[in-house]
């Protein structure tokens, strides 16, 4: 296992045009402490590919407590279909209770989604990743073109690295389009979330996700009420030719 001197920048170049299967093979061959983040959506493709390489691959899902019933059923379907264990991670009870007690059940419509997401997603995610050396995600460039043009197939993940330990993220689907993902799902009889048949492209928590029309970008179905502030932290190079 290559847990030291892992040259993610070089490998990102070397594997940029490789298939998702090749990237997942690299990931699973490089790290013992590695797991797939499965959101209960079309990233099921990762599970399908990875279980063909290693049937014992570790998979986890974040149960925010606010997912659609269809998503809970789908997670169970995937568990049974692939005969795998899925670590379903729950948020800290006290943190959720404190938030709901002070702000109610729908504070995100007023205060933005990040406070709620921090408690229901990021804290459990951070705790789980602390026991790993790398994770595999379904992040794709075409999901949010403005902010994900530079999604490499493998990268050092600064959010979860520490002074003591580098942490890595594999994005095997980075260069696939949504159409390629769906072609794979249909060609390989991969199970999928029933919400996709109801117009949902991007699937998250029930109050924060809505169906989109065929001509709308999938991100328009998430946190639509706060669209203008989504990318505020990015640094954007101005077009100075004007």
């Amino acid at each position, binding site marked *: 296992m290559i847990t030291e001197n892992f040259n993610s920048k070089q490998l990102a170049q070397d594997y940029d045009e490789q298939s998702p299967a090749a990237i997942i093979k690299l990931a699973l061959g490089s790290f013992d402490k590695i797991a797939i983040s499965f959101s209960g959506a079309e*990233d099921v493709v990762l599970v399908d590919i990875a279980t063909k390489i290693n049937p014992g691959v570790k998979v986890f899902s974040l149960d925010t407590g606010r997912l659609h019933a269809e998503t809970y059923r789908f997670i169970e379907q995937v568990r049974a279909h692939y005969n795998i264990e899925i670590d379903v991670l729950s948020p800290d009870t006290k943190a959720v209770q404190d938030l709901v007690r002070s702000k109610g059940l729908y504070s995100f419509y007023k205060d933005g989604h990040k406070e709620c997401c*921090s408690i229901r997603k*990021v804290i459990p995610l951070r705790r789980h990743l602390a026991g790993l050396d790398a994770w595999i995600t379904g992040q794709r460039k075409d*999901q949010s073109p403005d902010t994900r043009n530079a999604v490499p197939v493998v990268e050092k993940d600064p959010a979860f690295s520490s002074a003591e330990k580098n942490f890595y993220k594999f994005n095997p689907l980075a260069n696939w389009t949504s159409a390629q993902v769906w072609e794979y799902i249909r060609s390989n009889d991969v199970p999928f979330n029933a919400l996709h048949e109801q117009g949902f492209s*991007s699937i998250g928590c029930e109050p924060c996700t809505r169906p989109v029309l065929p001509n709308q970008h999938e991100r328009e179905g998430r946190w639509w009420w706060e669209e203008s502030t989504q990318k505020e*932290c990015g640094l954007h190079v*101005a077009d100075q030719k004007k």
Partner: protein
Amino acid sequence: MKITFVKKIKVDGSPCRKCAEVQSRLEKDGHIDKIDRTVIADERDNNSEGMQLAKQYEVDRAPFFIVENDDSDPLIYTVYFKLVNEILSGKTNEEDAARDILDSNDLDFI
């Protein structure tokens, strides 16, 4: 050790909300005196010092910090709580840390 704090001015000329929040936390946490320089990354001017530093260190987020030591390569921090924990010998609570991670990273896919 020298710490540079790079703040952003947005394309429309308005200040970056997150940068202001981080500055306020630096002050509230008693760390502001440990910042040696504050530099502006003006999105309207690619030649502004902050934009040049972002390019030099391949940073695409703001705010960020550059920590320079005489005997090693500069360290870049885009997440405030990590700077506090690893450089400023301070502590942050878990919820603030999670919020910093969410503010500084695209985690919409999880």
